[in-house]
């Protein structure tokens, strides 16, 4: 807890919360634009539609957002050559864990903020019926898990490289890859495609009637494996990152 407290002492004036809020507000603006002036059909299906849009936006935006978050939390250590002092005060594993938990709290805040925003948006748009809280809760868990896996990947890169352009470029490439994956399949075993695998809602567009129908997805066995892969990535990135950080000589 003491080490975690110092993580928050360190990021004073770094405006990490503000930076993430600005980035997420871009996503919220996209949501507002995507759901503007709903018709009768949209009002009826609005709650499912929101759950269908969320992973598509996340798969494009979150790799970059998570690279920014990890970089903001890590570059201050590189700039000040602080690990050679910190590693004489705490075990490296504890220092790594504190960094992980600090970021994890931001990731949790982002995930909760996103779901809260969707619910507020749905009520403001006067969508018919009430949100299926079971699906929204599941979306929160999946969203959190996917963001966390990307955060851990980016954190490892940010701690590894002094030049933060490298992890940021990886984040941008991850976003681009997410965009490509979206057009290939609705699941992926890659860490950047986790949002697609965990998507709870799908969309059916009838080319003849030009009517869009939203539905809750029934995942196949391979899609369940892809969801499980998200959690495996979390473990893999955490364990490899912790070992690398602990072994790294400064």
């Amino acid at each position, binding site marked *: 807890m003491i*080490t975690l*407290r*110092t993580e928050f*002492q*360190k990021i004073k004036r*770094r405006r990490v919360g503000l930076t993430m809020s600005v980035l997420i507000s871009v996503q919220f603006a996209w949501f507002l634009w995507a759901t503007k002036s709903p018709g009768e059909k949209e009002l009826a299906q609005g709650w499912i539609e929101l759950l269908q849009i969320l992973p598509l936006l996340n798969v494009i935006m979150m790799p970059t957002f998570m690279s920014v978050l990890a970089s903001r939390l890590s570059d201050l250590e590189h700039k000040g050559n602080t*690990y050679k002092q*910190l590693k004489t005060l*705490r075990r490296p594993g504890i220092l790594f864990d504190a960094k992980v938990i600090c970021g994890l709290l931001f990731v949790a805040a982002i995930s909760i903020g996103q779901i809260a925003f969707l619910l507020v948006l749905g009520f403001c748009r006067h969508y018919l019926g009430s949100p299926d809280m079971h699906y929204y809760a599941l979306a929160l868990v999946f969203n959190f898990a996917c963001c966390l896996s990307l955060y851990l990947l980016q954190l490892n890169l940010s701690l590894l490289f002094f030049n933060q352009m490298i992890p940021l470029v990886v984040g941008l490439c991850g976003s681009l890859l997410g965009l490509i994956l979206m057009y290939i399949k609705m699941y992926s075993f890659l860490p950047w495609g986790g949002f697609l695998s965990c998507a709870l809602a799908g969309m059916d567009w009838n080319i003849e009637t030009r009517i869009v129908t939203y539905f809750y997805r029934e995942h196949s066995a391979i899609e369940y494996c892809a969801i499980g892969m998200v959690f495996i990535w979390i473990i893999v990135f955490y364990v490899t990152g912790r070992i690398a950080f602990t072994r790294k000589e400064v």
Partner: protein
Amino acid sequence: MSTQNLVETHNLTKQYGRFRCVNAVNMQVTSGAIYGFLGPNGAGKSTTLKMILGLARPTEGDITLFGIPVNEKNRIKLLSQTGSLIESPSYYGHLSGEENLRIIQTLKGCSKKDVDEVLKIVRLDSARHKLVNHYSLGMKQRLGLASALLGFPRLLILDEPTNGLDPAGIQEMRELICSLPSAYGMTVLVSSHLLSEIDQMADHVGIIRKGELVYQNTLESLHAHARSQIALRVSHAAVAADLLRQDGIDTSQEEDYLLFPMMEDSYVANLCRRLIAQNISLYRVEKRETSLEDIFLSLTGKESSL
């Protein structure tokens, strides 16, 4: 004061690939001492200090701190009695000096009052609220020292603490380091590539060259090696040396010269008279000095800056 060794290394070795940058170093730092760790750039000083602090893993050898062998389990506990400043100061530029020290104080678990005290010791109390990014290099160095002093550890490890400081800053830092053992009972292990600096600060000295500890003793003992000699250039040095030895005068020959330990002027005059009486021509009488610098250069292979 106890003469227990606070730091002991046994065959401490660090190898990167095929390159041994530290080779079987057996260092002993006595309690209450200021141990000057001297060597040219790249000799292995920082690597040795990093291994003592657990920042680099030794390839071979052991380290004992405060009489206890260091292992991964007790490392942090032993280092809690240690303060360090390695190469350059560690700091968060976007935070003030005081905020930086608060972080270290939280991690060290020492009193909040210590922050005020160390800021006064390093004379940064007037700049405590200034962002460290706006500090001069000297101020950053002093902040690094303040971090090391937090909690008033038993052992202070400083790697080239005067790097980048102006002459006044060097003098200030030197005085501060010299005062630490008497004022706070600290033992200081300070490295430098400057002999003059160590000569003015340390009471014990270890000299490292190409990763090997080539000298370790008190500074007094090193000074004792620095001696003066009388050299006489004569016509037949070998004959003259034999004649003098027969008279019970100890001398050594170096080409045309006879070398004698430092002696009074009257002895020199007597010596000259004896040689001339034996028909040995006397060409020159010289006083030769072997300075501390000469000894250092001979130990370090003339690679260092003085």
